């Protein structure tokens, strides 16, 4: 499994810490923040591939955060985390470009799988863009 960076955004510290621990155990570089605002700050400064984003958080909600993230770094894939009562938010998120949503409580395995799939897609997208960039460069700066 290729290494990639995951940012866990959840206001519940225990959930965040445990998820990070378990991701690291699976060789994924994971870190966490507790709010949408902090997540946006973090993304601006660092190299994040996939964001695990809770829908229901104090302050900036998950959906609003998703919108900003997609504006700043469209390539970053986002997996939404919802409760049963906020399935609609997850669906809204997907319309805004989230990779998928997961309903709590879920098995860690499915979370892991979802994150990997998200990263795969990010890689594909990135490759496509790089190819396009190369073509573009060759056209404008040949030789």
């Amino acid at each position, binding site marked *: 499994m290729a290494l990639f960076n995951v940012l866990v955004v959840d206001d519940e510290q225990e*959930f965040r810490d445990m998820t990070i621990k*378990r991701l690291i*155990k699976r060789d994924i570089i994971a870190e966490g923040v507790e709010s949408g605002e902090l997540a946006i700050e973090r993304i601006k400064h660092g190299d994040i591939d996939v964001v695990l984003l809770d829908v229901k958080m104090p302050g900036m909600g998950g959906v609003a955060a998703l919108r900003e993230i997609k504006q700043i770094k469209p390539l970053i894939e986002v997996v939404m985390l919802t*409760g*049963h*009562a906020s399935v609609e938010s997850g669906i809204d998120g997907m319309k805004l470009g989230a990779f998928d949503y997961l309903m*709590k*409580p879920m*098995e*860690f395995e499915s979370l892991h799988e979802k994150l990997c799939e998200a990263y795969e897609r990010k890689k594909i997208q990135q490759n496509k863009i790089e190819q396009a960039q190369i073509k573009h460069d060759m056209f404008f700066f040949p030789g």
Partner: protein
Amino acid sequence: MGPTDTKEKYYRHLRKGLFSAFFIFILVPTIFVSWVTLHNLRQSAIQRIEMFGVRMAEERSDAIRQYLDQQIQILSTLSGMYPVKVMGNQDHLDRLFRAVNERGHVVDLLVVDAKGTQLSYVGPHRAAVEGKNYKEAEWFNDVLIGGKHVSDVFLGYRNIPHLVVAVTDPLKTYVIRATINSETFNALLHQAQMGYSGDAIIVNPEGNFQTPSLQGVKELTSAERELLVHHEGTNSRVMDSFLYTTRWIKEGQWLLIIKFKVRESLGSFNERRDNSLMIIAAATIIFMFSAVLLCRYMVGKLERSDRRRADMDQQMIQVEKMASVGRLAAGIAHEINNPLQMITNQAGWIEELLPDEDPALVKNFDEYRDAVSKIKFHVIRAGTITHRLLGFSRRMTTEKECIRVNELIEETISFVENEALSHKIIIERELDENLPTTMSDGPQVQQVFLNILNNGLDAVDHDGKITVSTRADDTSIYIEFSDTGPGISPEVMKQIFDPFFTTKEPGKGTGLGMSICYDIMKKLGGKIDVNNKKTGGAIFTITLPLRKMGEPGHEGEGTFGYEGSIS
């Protein structure tokens, strides 16, 4: 039972009240007007009788006066024609008697000289008057002073009532007296037609009868004596249901009284009154009958609409209760989900870390691994429950969605399976694998399933079987729930979908379950049928219409549970 009694009483009161209102405001005025009209008719009829009476009294009094005048005239003629010598001659008087008495109404003739000595007599009582002196007799003196005399009816020497007419000759040398046959005189009076109970009599101012009563009475009643008051012309008045017409005759010496029984004389009026009464009675009966029908109809209608409203209220309460239970359940489920997530995570973490350990060094390595996997299993179970609770709360919003009936059944069975197992009831599934999906309201359909399953469990009680089968044709999906219970009695069958009908003990069932099911299915365009199987036990068949996405639903009109209620 209490409230039902009160309601019954209320509607009974209402019916009575309405009927009384009809009675008072329409019938009573009608009766009053009829009474007034009849009374007026009667009064005018009495007036006509009065006029008739007055005419008759005048006619009779004229006839009597004429008769008496005629008698006086005859005697005056005789006395004018013959001197006392001739009249005193017995033979001559005999001849005269025969001449004047052709009609036979003169009983006798008597001639008395101016000194009161009897000169001659013709009549049946010669012996009694022979040689008698009349000097002291009142009538004799009366004649000598006034020239003529008409007596009251008196018994005289012969002890039979008779009437005496006497005159004197122009020179007052003798007096001739005639006794007039009372019957001839009476006949004059009694010619008048006065009906069965009527009467015509002549009395003197003392009230003594001068003529016999047609009714055989001998004297006036005390009320009738009040009539003995002198008055001019003819009077009439009504006393004791008799009409009395009175007229003084013979210079105020006699009172002619003619009396009619008012009722007998009202012949044509009575006939008209009877006709009117019959029409009024017939109209009254018809009216009362229609009033009763109308009252019954109106109150019945009111009762039905009241009952329907009460049913609806009850159902709304039930729905609201379910909704609040649903909200509560959703809240709890949501709160529990987070800790459940933490438990899974922690257990998962342990599971992940375990392989790093050396099994040889950890004494209970396998036990730990088992425990962790059990924790995970039960968290999944708890998760299923919270999902179900959340699903239950979402049931309150009615939505059309694509439903898979078999899945709904599986889910519903899972709600009751534990209870079924504890009562040793097997729930068997005969589900059509290729059952099509349909557009309907999943949660509501599920509520119906749950209700029927619960009723089935109650019916079977223990050690039995409930079979759920599904099948479909081109138009509908059929879901059958058959049980091995005792079946449904005909009485229960009749009322099974009635609101508040329950076979359960008081306090155990609202009696709304089946009625709500009926409403739900009607609203969704389907239906519920109940039957008993020949082999025993009941069978409920739910028919759900088959609809593709986008197809307009044929929903029952109106609000929930109202139009659909069974009446």
